[in-house]
């Protein structure tokens, strides 16, 4: 028992150590990540004075919200398509759906780069947005599909029996039932979009940048404590997002009465 507690403590320590390390040194006036001189908020001021960085943050948010919303809409209908598909098709569709999930990011990035170049889409906002939508769709599908499959098929029969047409069935039975899955899918897509580096790096071009790409290019130039300050802010933002997500899902499940 003692050993197991020690083990878990160690795992959690290692897991959080780097994050808190970053946060700790974001208040260091010394400018390095190893010798703490004195407390300062200068790095935060630097972050908020950096309009280029703030625009990048804004871009990242816009891309994340837009791509995850659109991916959620397309993904939900994708999941319904798979759900209704005849048995033979179902497996094929699922396999195609999962291709992007099981592909390494570099391949996705490289192939999208080719695609956009051929299609004549300029690298930048559009290409990044399209890529994010594209890799988020299968995630949404995978979050929604189990909800659909858990739904008893007689529920749809029952609705039809009570006079519902296809549209009623969709809006009054299926969508309300899978709402928790839709939320989960949306938030999953949001995090994937905020987190993505590799795919974006391939299709981003010169003029446009997201946070990940920006952090990468700054980190390659060595340590700069404004990156620490930025990561602290992002961590706080993530915490807020987690809490919001938690509250929403709790409420949804309390209302729906399903576990």
């Amino acid at each position, binding site marked *: 028992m003692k050993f197991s507690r020690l*083990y878990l403590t160690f795992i959690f320590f290692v897991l959080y150590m780097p994050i808190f390390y970053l946060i700790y040194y974001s208040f260091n006036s010394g400018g390095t990540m190893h010798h703490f001189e004195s407390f300062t908020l200068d790095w935060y001021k630097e972050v908020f004075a950096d309009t280029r960085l703030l625009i990048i943050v804004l871009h990242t948010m816009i891309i994340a919200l837009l791509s995850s919303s659109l991916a959620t809409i397309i993904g939900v209908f994708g999941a319904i398509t798979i759900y209704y598909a005849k048995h033979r098709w179902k497996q094929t569709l699922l396999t195609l759906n999962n291709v992007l999930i099981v592909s390494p990011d*570099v391949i996705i990035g490289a*192939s999208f780069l080719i695609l956009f170049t051929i299609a004549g889409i300029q690298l930048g906002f559009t290409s990044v947005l399209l890529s994010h939508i594209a890799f988020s769709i299968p995630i949404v599908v995978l979050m929604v599909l189990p909800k659909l499959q858990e739904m008893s098929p007689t529920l749809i029969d029952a609705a039809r029996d009570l006079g519902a047409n296809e549209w009623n069935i969709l809006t009054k039975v299926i969508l309300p039932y899978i709402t928790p899955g839709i939320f989960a899918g949306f938030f999953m897509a949001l995090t994937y979009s905020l987190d993505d580096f590799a795919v974006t790096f391939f299709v981003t071009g010169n003029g446009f940048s997201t946070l990940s790409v920006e952090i990468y290019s700054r980190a390659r130039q060595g340590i700069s404590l404004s990156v620490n300050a930025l990561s602290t802010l992002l961590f706080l933002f993530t915490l807020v997002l987690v809490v919001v997500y938690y509250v929403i899902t709790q409420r949804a499940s309390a209302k729906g009465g399903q576990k």
Partner: protein
Amino acid sequence: MRRYAYAIPYWLWIGLFVVAPIILIIYYSFFDIEGHFSLVNYETFFTPVYLRMTVNSFWYAFLITACSLLIAYPTAYLLTKTKHKQLWLLLIILPTWVNLLLKAYAFLGLFGTYGAVNALFEAIGIGTKQLLFTDFSFVFVSVYIFIPFMILPIFNALEKLNPSLIDAARDLGASEWTTFRRVIFPLTLDGVKAGCQAVFIPSLSLFMLTRLIAGNRVITLGTAVEQHFLVTQNWGMGATIAVFLMIAMASIMALTGNKKWGVRQ
């Protein structure tokens, strides 16, 4: 019919972003750097340089996966025994929401010559070591980044396990170890498989880590693809490597034969 109308965007997505990219990659692999149709990329791939790189990539991916599994399984198992396990699980997931690059960046500080780890080494008398830009740091940071994705499916598999099966095994005289080996582990194999897939595949494309942490010492196929597409502009060669990566992926998926994809919650 209307039922099919709402599926149109999804079908478009499959066509444009799933099928077309695969075809494009294969198509481009047959063009050399001047844009002439040729098989030269395939010839190049079968030279010792690339073959060694392939072996290397898979070796590192394997190492990362194996280390993750070895650390993650006990963690997941012990987590299921804790009181507020959903909360602890959330705490395991939380770091995955921190941008991967920020975590890598943190290790630049931690593993630096004067970083916290070397300070600790100094204090216990091992002495300062070169940590950054080594194979070790690459594997360590990769495991650090991926471990939640290994813990999660195993945790879910363990949670789904019917506890009376364990009681039954004990009742039939199995020791704790035998129970684990003969009952618990086989029944959580699906979770293990899902976790291994979730770690192995992305660990092939960690070019940013090789650049930041491993100082270009570790050149994997992922790094090479990035190099060819974004630096040397030899798309044909990059596409060829991608083709082999895709073949490798497909065979791994077929081998593990896991129909139920490891859905993260």
